[in-house]
């Protein structure tokens, strides 16, 4: 990484030659921009970054970035990122994808990722719908949301990503909004700097299909955290996370502690060079 020491990257260095395929007005543009800026702030060398995603409009994001990327299958971004980070703790790993990817088909992995606490930043581009498949209810869709697969409105309680993350033991829980890209960039930066899994649920409207949760409604509903909010106070954070309106933006909860791959590293007692010796001792044990 010698070459990084001297280089100062610009935002353009993080842009790939592939042009975003999103609809005009899609919230995901703002998230992409915030990401470019957060990476620039860190002055990351693109070769040392891996962006992992699943399937969905939002999950296309890695193609538009000049780093390494892994556009996996639907719902499995977190397990893939886990493999990358555990295998190569030296890499900067971010996960980006949709609310469907994170909480529907990927819901089980989300829970375990939170408890595992790898040093990874997870930005969920939450448009409260399945954009790519044309607007069906995602787990965060509000009750009564009308779509083709529920013409009379969806019946389930929406998932609350913040509360869920906290219940699963996440060490960093935040909410952002694509309509406030500068704050969002700062939030992503804070997530990157957090030692452990940083979960950033980010409102990123889908103007094409979700006509009830829009830039306009979000703008009316979001609010900064109460000035006295202490994100290191679990109970206070739980209360904020559980509240539904206003939609608080910022770092709801954070807790310090070692990350999963750090703990794994601590347990390593040798390197690949020790293999011949290990094999010999194992063969002896079995003879």
């Amino acid at each position, binding site marked *: 990484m010698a*070459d990084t020491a001297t280089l100062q990257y610009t935002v353009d260095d993080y842009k790939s030659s592939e042009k975003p395929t999103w609809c005009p007005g899609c919230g995901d543009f703002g998230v992409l921009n915030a990401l470019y800026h957060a990476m620039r702030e860190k002055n990351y060398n693109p070769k040392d970054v891996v962006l992992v995603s699943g399937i969905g409009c939002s999950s296309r994001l890695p193609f538009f970035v000049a780093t390494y990327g892994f556009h996996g*299958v639907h719902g499995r971004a977190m397990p*893939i*990122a*886990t*493999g990358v980070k555990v*295998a190569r703790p030296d890499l900067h790993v971010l996960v980006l994808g949709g609310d469907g990817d994170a909480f529907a088909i990927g819901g089980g992995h989300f829970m375990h990722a939170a408890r595992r606490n790898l040093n990874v930043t997870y930005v969920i581009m939450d448009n409260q719908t399945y954009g790519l498949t044309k607007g069906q209810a995602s787990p965060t869709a509000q009750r009564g949301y009308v779509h083709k697969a529920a013409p009379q409105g969806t019946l389930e309680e929406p998932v609350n990503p913040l509360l869920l993350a906290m219940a699963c033991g996440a060490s960093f829980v935040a909410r952002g909004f694509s309509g406030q890209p500068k704050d969002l960039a700062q939030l992503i930066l804070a997530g990157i700097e957090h030692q452990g899994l940083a979960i950033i649920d980010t409102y990123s409207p889908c103007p094409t299909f979700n006509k009830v949760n829009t830039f306009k409604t979000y703008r009316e509903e979001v609010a900064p955290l109460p000035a006295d909010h202490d994100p290191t106070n679990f109970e206070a954070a739980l209360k904020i996370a559980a509240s539904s309106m206003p939609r608080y933006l910022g770092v709801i909860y954070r807790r310090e502690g070692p990350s999963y791959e750090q703990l*794994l590293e601590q347990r390593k007692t*040798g390197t690949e060079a020790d293999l011949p010796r290990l094999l010999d001792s194992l063969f002896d044990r*079995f003879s």
Partner: protein
Amino acid sequence: MPKNDLVIRVAGEAGEGVLSTGQLLVQGAARAGYRVLTDFSPPAEIKGGYSFFQIRIGSRLFYSRGDSVDLLLAFNREAYDLSSGDLTEGGLLIYDPAEVSPPASPTRTQYPVPLSEIARTQLKFELGKNVVAVGVLAALFGMPEEYLRKLLEQRFGGRGPDILNKNLGALEAGLRYVREHIINQPGFRRELFEVERSPADGRRIVVSGNQAASLGALTAGVQFFAGYPITPASDIMEFLAAELPKVGGAVIQAEDEIASMNMVLGASFAGKRAMTSTSGPGVSLMVEALGLASMAELPCVLVDCQRAGPSTGMPTRHEQGDLWLAAFGGHGEIQRIVLAPTSVEDCYYQIQHAFNLADKYQLPVILLLDTVLSVRTESIPRPDPQRIPRWSRLLYQEPNGQGVPPHEGIFLRYQLTDSGISPMSIPGQRGGQYVATGLEHNEEGRPRYDAETKTRFTEKRFKKLAAAPQDAPEPDFYGDASAEIGIITWGSTAGAVREAIERAAEEGIRVAGIAPKMLWPVPDAQLRPFLEGKREVMVAEVNYNGQFARILEAHWGRPLRHVNAYAGEPFKVRDLLAAIRTAARAGAVAR
């Protein structure tokens, strides 16, 4: 004259020490220079229920557990009821009279040995019953005691002199009982049970197939394992969990099999040799991620310890029923290599081939073990970690010096080449940036849906698969290559086939056998010559459909004779022999 082949079975309640009795005996016997091959039939439930450990022991090499039992030790009544039918004519039954009183029978010899009585009353050491049993069996087949004493010393020496002495006492009690109450009896034909050793070469180890595969994975340089517990695969994960950190690697117990396989892909993308192991239900859950590996061209190794299906089936029972799933299970047109080792020793080497092939062809390799291979222990030659050279991926070469764009735009991760194999970059390599994806894509890895891209990249991926048989590991060959009757087989069934062929030869029936290690794609160059001059070609496998047989039938467009068993148990050598005899008779008639 002592025998060179004896089958001993220890049967009883699971948890009562069937397994520990068997294992102690086996490790001692292996050290003493006996060749051993074992099988373990666990109970259906966690605790309780009939279970047995079978040991085939002698001076020659064995390939199957043996169809019938020469020496049965029955710990209890259920064990006697369920096992005595497997005794050979003239076999020896040892039983605990406190538990069961078997009627005398002209077809066997039998002696009571008051195992629990000795342990409880004489030794005041109830837990010692198993060691008493070890002594009993050792005395019967004439094993030198010092190997067992040494073993007990190693095992219990660290726990204080009292425990060690108790165990040594139990061993002695067992040995003595046999000397004083059995061997010296008039009419006891010692030579029927005494077993000869092979020249002790001191370079053998005793391991199960799962252990051999784990050792092989370590040898291959695996650095990452993710898995989810499942019978009979869990002990691969458990083995590696203990050992991988010693060489800088990591094991993750994932939340399920879907996560496991995707974690493996992440680790492989990041540049490490990575694997998982599971059994059928887990493989079913992994096929989507395996498809991603085909499309994104990521090397990975999956060990499938097959068990009896379908569905949850019989988790502790044997079947070779996952071949179709391994080769064809996936939506769209996937590329995978399927390998199957034929013996415990082979597990060690085939998994190394699996890693090599995965890296060379950048696709998933599935290694099919089966319950018999996974759980049985064998004494095998000490493995040679040098035998199979490690192949590396075709790696992207980072440009030297400066002047390289700090970002992507140039690297052709999926470059169209003659071989279909493209150089692969790993994160951290300058100028190698790309996005791995399950979408159809162009040379740069960008999603493209036009007809030409789809056609050319489908051909690219299948070009690799078509080339793979050139690197197929050598098959096993058995019997007489020039025979008119041939048997094709795979996996652990190869052992029984080999013995059946040897027995047929003793009857004057010439048979040729072949067990390819690569099952898919079909290694035509290895198998086609085998068909030449054959009047009858059988395919023997433990499943209902004849899964490999049908693959070959489709491949060659010719019918083959299916020989199948699907009882949740390995083939009996005698059933294979019967199939051979039938084929031989049909030939005789035809002439």
